[in-house]
């Protein structure tokens, strides 16, 4: 890193242990090409399929089975075909020793229309 303020600081330096400047050649890396963008993104790890959001909650109190730790703090979006005006987002998070699954319904902004 270009430590332009380094000289202004009054730090004690030990002879022989001064931090060398980075060589200018190290700033000549090429920008990444487009071949990386052609590839598919990596597959979603299969354990994330076990989200509680797909559980129908039979219990009127809204209780769900305990989640596996691996699905906590991941944001899910509802997978529904076709144009829709409302989308559901969901996540399961932990508060102390209790887990809470929160679903949020959000309007979808239509492209080209004024927002409702």
């Amino acid at each position: 890193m270009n430590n332009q303020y380094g000289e202004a600081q009054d730090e004690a330096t030990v002879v022989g242990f001064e931090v060398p400047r980075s060589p200018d050649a190290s700033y000549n890396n090429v920008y990444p090409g487009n071949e990386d963008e052609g590839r598919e993104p990596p597959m979603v790890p299969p354990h994330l399929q076990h989200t509680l959001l797909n559980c129908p909650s039979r219990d009127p109190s809204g209780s769900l089975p305990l989640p596996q730790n691996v699905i906590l703090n991941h944001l899910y979006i509802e997978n529904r075909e076709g144009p829709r005006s409302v989308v559901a987002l969901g996540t399961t998070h932990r508060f102390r020793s209790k887990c809470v699954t929160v679903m949020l319904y959000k309007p979808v902004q239509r492209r080209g229309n004024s927002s409702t």
Partner: protein
Amino acid sequence: MIPAFFSPETPGRSNMDVDNDPFHRLVASPRMSQADIELSRNRISVFLSTHTAYELLPDSGKVIALDVNLPVKQAFHILYEQGIPVAPLWDFSNGQFVGVLSALDFVLILRELGNHGSNLTEEELETHTISAWKEGKLHLNGQIDGNGQLIPRRLIHAGPYDSLRDVALKLLQNKISTLPVVHSSSQDGSFQQLLHLASLSGILKCICRNFRHSSSSLPILQQPICSIPMGTWVPKIGESSGQPFAMLRPNASLSAALSLLVQAEVSSIPIVDDNDSLVDMYCRSDITALAKDRAYAQIRLDEMSIHQAVQLGQDGASPYGFFNGQRCQMCLRSDPLHKVMERLAVPGVRRLVIVEAGSKRVEGIISVSDVFKFLLS
């Protein structure tokens, strides 16, 4: 407080919707001492003060929230599909929960549509957002403060470390049935984390769980509810409560039911036949059944009877099938308080109708807020 006295007189019954039938016989009940009442109240108060809202959370719970800019129409579809009566409202522009949307809001919207023959065109109804409705409600009648909070006002909520007593008092004082339990990890209240929707039923469940095996520590638990000044009873001669007991016949119009719900500030109305026997209940939360198949766009409130409205939500179940299900929970006036409390502690059961054994004639209603008003006063 003195237990209610009953007059043994038996005058003729009126045929009006609001019933004035007094009790027919004297009920002999052990008198409860004031000391017993105070002891029980103190014990419960101590329990509620030393436990927090965190205990209301199930080990793995679910809460559904709505964006405040959702069209009202879609919001009610969601409430109906998910089977929930109330949902907190999230405002993305300021990253906060700003209120709740409840069945009462829907009742008010329908009444407004009915009254003005729809100030809103069909197209406006499609896009009328929750936030626009809440603002309009502010201008319309600032007096009404049922389940919905008005946006400029602060959201009524509780934190997970608030005591159960504070949560119960907040619910009672604001006359609401649910409030969001929200945790904020920063000092200024931002980064809100929605944890749970707290209700009096849930708090009652905690009380029952705690005192179930030590019922002798709460003497009033063994008392029959008729001997406790709790709940709303059909008016008797000698009592000057003055508050009419709200009941309706099955062929009463839906608009009459909705008006009664709003004006009497109750959350449910017993539906009775000509003998004043209970046949069903119309609850404020039943209003979301109108979202089914867009019924509310097609009905006229004064042309649909409450019997039909109830059938909408039943999917063709027999009108008397409700006795087996959760729809209408009944109890007897001789039932002890602990039994009534256990039944009210089930989420979704907010009131029990007190009926006469056999004839199912309605004698009163006891709701979960009645229990708390008595316990916390």
